[in-house]
């Protein structure tokens, strides 16, 4: 059961890609922006960290030295030694002085379908059934957390993950990329801060922007 029930979670993202856009920029945003992060491409990770540093004024407070970066699990359980893009992102950010530590405390215990291959948004309950927070707290445990993911779609994963933390914790989310399902983009680089809001009737989330 979630430890708290926020109605919304603050999030930030650096890049944007269009799922169904038809312009050259939109099409390239999938193959040349989304795909490198999904495969843990080191050049893309290093460049993203550099762009975050250049846009730190947008992300005020997100990457402070007392913020613990929390890699968000993939949609399926991860075997030890397997590629975990969110952890690679956290390690790259920390290597650039973004954030203060990494807490590998979120675990996916069973598989969920990938957002890209699911016809509708996944419910928050689906994620809560498959996500666990495994953290032993003591006096040195951070209280400011940044959930880090490669891509935010509807935000249901990040919302569910945030709800597992204590009410007294400050929990925000960061995804390198946010997707837009329709419409065109002018440039993949679009640093934003926004909100993931819970929709109780459907147990789903919406993201602004």
């Amino acid at each position, binding site marked *: 059961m979630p430890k708290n029930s926020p109605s919304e979670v603050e999030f930030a993202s650096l890049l944007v890609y269009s799922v169904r856009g038809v312009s050259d920029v939109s099409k390239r945003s999938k193959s*040349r*922006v989304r795909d490198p992060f999904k*495969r*843990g491409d080191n050049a893309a990770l290093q460049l993203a960290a550099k762009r975050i540093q250049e846009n730190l004024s947008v992300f005020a407070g997100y990457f402070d030295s007392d913020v613990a970066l929390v890699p968000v699990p993939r949609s399926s359980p991860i075997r030890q*030694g*397997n590629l975990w893009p969110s952890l690679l992102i956290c390690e790259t950010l920390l290597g650039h002085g973004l954030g203060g530590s990494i807490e590998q405390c979120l675990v996916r215990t069973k598989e969920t379908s990938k957002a*890209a*291959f699911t016809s509708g948004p996944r419910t928050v309950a689906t994620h809560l059934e498959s996500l666990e927070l495994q953290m032993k707290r003591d006096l040195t445990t951070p209280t400011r957390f940044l959930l880090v993911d490669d891509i935010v779609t509807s935000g249901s994963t990040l919302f569910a993950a945030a709800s597992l933390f204590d009410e007294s914790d400050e929990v925000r989310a960061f995804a390198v990329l946010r997707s837009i399902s329709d419409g065109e983009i002018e*440039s993949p680089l679009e640093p934003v801060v926004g909100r993931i809001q819970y929709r109780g009737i459907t147990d789903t989330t919406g993201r602004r922007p």
Partner: protein
Amino acid sequence: MVFRAYDPLELLGPMNAVEAKNAPKSLWAAGDVALLEAGSRVSVVGSRNVSPQGVKRTAKLVRALVERNMIVVSGLAQGVDTIAHTTAIEAGGQTIAVLGTPLDTASPTQNRDLQTLIMREHLAISQFEIGTPVQRHNFPARNRTMALFSDATVIVEASAKSGTEHQAWEALRLGRMLFVLKSVADAGHDWVAKVIHYGAQVLTDKNLDVVLENMPERVRAEELPF
């Protein structure tokens, strides 16, 4: 026929630590290495003793990949591999064979002509130097290398004890997309259920188009548009 030796980085580009772990130390290639820059590479793999339905499913999938200008990768073994390569060629597409033998050896021998055609007009890759004996353990190693060369792997037919399993686990380890046809998922093999648990997706007629639209591509650092 010219067989050239390569450092894996020449053919694969920079690798992250997960990719580097099982990457071969050397590679030999014959054919058009520019194919490695030509688009998404999708492995189509499965049983040597392929069923009639498996033949149809393999051909249908490969034609769909070729229609979308994807490169069909396989291992030039009997069965699914052979159907994958020949269908790609017949459909006017491009194919890469990742061999479990040195480039001058054909296994099975009846695929010698197909191997020669691929080396001449497409691309064949091997991690085994000329003169290396062909041993059973070559083939699981070849499957791991095939996963490394592929942006995604599709298993179209498999048995309870299948060499394809090695490729499935390696694809997952590398964080590459792994798909099993619904017929494979329904067959009830333990290892298939396990790879689905760890992230393999079930490919059906219904989601085929969406999956193909989402096949990842490789990007060079200088092409990153942000």
